């Protein structure tokens, strides 16, 4: 009898350690969010490379357990997840992602038609629109800056900046940024249709000229020197972006470029995704602030898309008729590479099946990456 009660006691103790005994409504909600992410990634193919690791990370982070010093949770110092999470909290995953992005980005479209850079600048209004709104609803300036960067539509930049300005909001900001990047195909097309006329949607742009190798090599060098002299606080992101691009374009470091845009970025994407997902523990994540951040994130994407399109329309007033820009590429100033450029292409094809806008849209798209990193540098310099 004693033996049975002994076993019973042990089983009862064991039960208190299980997730079933510790689950709360919050954990349940977050598990559903994780499953939704995985569903969207697999069934709808919305940014699967991001949503699968983040979605699964949310599941990992929201399996409840008894806090018995077992070093399991991502916030427990010394745990495996905590060690991996340091790349996020110390901000060294995002620059490595930027290294890979640089090594895989072809800036030819931008170099051949450099005026498209200005569209990438205009779309950054999304960041500051969200900043103003965040201040209006009571966030501190540093928190508002971190929230605003969601409008840059650049996950690594959002993580980097929020880890510096508002570490306590980083989980919500990262999840919000990646969610809306995945939802670009849902958010942008209605705004693009609303703000453009049928005539504007079928504007044909001049095909880009062939860009020489020398120009491609000079771009990362001048890009780095200029942007970082202007905003040194953007150095970690912009430095790595342009360095990666030089590896690609120099033609003599193919192995390094292949590693940067292949195994390295894949490894860091996995670690970043899974740890950002796991950082959304219900106890830390499910707050009113998170809900507000999600609302502000949506608005920032809407403002950024609107600003990009309206800027092109304004710009067209000053351009010759044969040099006009199709406003449907205005949305791609929101970096979200290359999804927002693909949206320009697909919406453009709906109205003229032989008008390919992708190569033109890639210009503002990569300018958006530079613009959002510069904007992040400014916010860090002002509020950090």
């Amino acid at each position: 009898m004693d033996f049975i009660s002994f076993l019973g006691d042990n089983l009862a103790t064991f039960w208190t350690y299980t997730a079933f005994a510790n689950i709360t409504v919050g954990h349940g909600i977050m598990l559903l969010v994780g499953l939704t992410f995985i569903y969207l990634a697999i069934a709808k193919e919305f940014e699967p490379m991001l949503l699968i690791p983040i979605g699964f990370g949310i599941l990992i982070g929201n399996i409840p357990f008894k806090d018995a010093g077992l070093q399991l949770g991502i916030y427990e110092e010394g745990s495996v997840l905590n060690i991996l999470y340091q790349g996020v909290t110390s901000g060294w995953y995002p620059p490595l992602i930027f290294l890979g992005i640089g090594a895989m980005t072809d800036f030819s479209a931008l170099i051949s038609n450099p005026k498209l850079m200005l569209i990438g600048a205009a779309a950054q209004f999304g960041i500051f629109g969200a900043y103003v709104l965040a201040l209006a609803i009571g966030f501190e300036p540093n928190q508002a800056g971190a929230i605003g960067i969601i409008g840059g539509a650049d996950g690594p930049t959002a993580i980097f900046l929020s880890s510096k300005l508002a570490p306590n909001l980083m989980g919500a900001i990262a999840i919000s940024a990646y969610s809306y990047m995945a939802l670009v195909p849902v958010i942008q097309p209605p705004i693009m249709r609303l703000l453009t006329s049928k005539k504007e949607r079928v504007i044909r742009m001049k095909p880009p000229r062939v860009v020489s190798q020398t120009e491609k090599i000079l771009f990362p060098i001048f890009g780095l020197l200029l942007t970082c002299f202007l905003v040194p606080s953007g150095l970690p992101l912009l430095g790595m972006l342009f360095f990666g691009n030089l590896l690609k374009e120099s033609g003599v470091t193919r192995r390094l470029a292949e590693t940067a845009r292949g195994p390295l970025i894949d490894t860091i994407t996995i670690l970043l995704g899974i740890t950002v997902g796991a950082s959304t523990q219900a106890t830390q994540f499910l707050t009113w602030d998170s809900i507000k951040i999600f609302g502000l994130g949506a608005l920032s994407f809407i403002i950024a898309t609107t600003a990009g399109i309206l800027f092109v329309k304004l710009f067209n007033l000053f351009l010759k008729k044969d040099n006009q820009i199709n406003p449907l590429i205005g949305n791609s100033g929101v970096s979200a590479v290359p999804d927002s450029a693909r949206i320009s292409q697909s919406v453009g094809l709906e109205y003229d099946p032989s008008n390919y806008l992708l190569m033109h849209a890639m210009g503002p798209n990569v300018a958006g990456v530079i613009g959002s990193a510069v904007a992040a540098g400014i916010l860090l310099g002002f509020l950090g």
Partner: protein
Amino acid sequence: MKQKIRLGLLFLLLSIVCSVQAQRTTALRINEVLVINEDNFVDDYGKRFPWIEIYNSSPGTVNIAGCFLTNDINKPKMYMVPKGDVLTRIRPRQHALFWADKMPTRGTFHVNFSLNPEEPNFIALFDSDGITLIDSVTVPAGQQTDISYGLIEDGWDQKRLNEELRLNANYKDKHGDRLWIYWEKVTPSSNNKILDTNEKIENFKENDSVGAGMTMTAMGVVFAGLIILYLIFKSIGNIAVNLSHRRVMKASGVTKEQAKDITGQSGDIYAAIAMAIYEATELHDEENTILTIKNTARNYSPWSSKIYTLREAPKR
């Protein structure tokens, strides 16, 4: 000749590295001094003596071992901070406290001189060569009991203070214009100025509560950066196009206008021409293809395949 150039470059690199190493101790500052310690900080022996606080103003760890502390400019090597003690490594923006008790046998941080409350006390920190003065201060005579004499901000020098006074109009009203001041709130081994608010954030809250200033400034900077980049690449593009015209003119002997026609074509047109030539001439492509439902023998395995081994010549 090449070897000489290489050696020269190596030497240059080494000297840069060495100078960087040497520069690091220059980041040390005499930060705070307490001359009359009656009811203040006690040392590890439970005794009260005057103390000198050194601050590492750099973003990297600096080892103070081998440097010299003195109270006599004519004897710069009066007290050498002993080597081999891990505690002499001062972490970034952190402090080390030396006891001026004239009892160096009590440990690394007990110097062999004391401070005299009756007269001005000169204190200097020399680099490990005993010649390079890193920092010095003269603490005026007539110090008050348990009130320290310290820098207005940790690690600042006159240049940094002047810069602040020039950039921040309110600074003088709030904090005065003196580099060294008396601190009633004595802070051994911690920051002289205790920050309970983030001044930058407070300024933004006070002066730009709506965010309009930030928006205008930041968007201005973003636009300015990308406009300059646009102008540079527009110019580089023009130069590149002109160069390619010249190359075509030289190679084909055509006029400038004809060269413009040739080089002005987009990549798509060349791709279309290449595809058409390929389609027209590469007709043997499918000759070796045999469509069959029979099993085909494979004479290799991944174990012997050169593709999967490291015998491929490394790519550059």
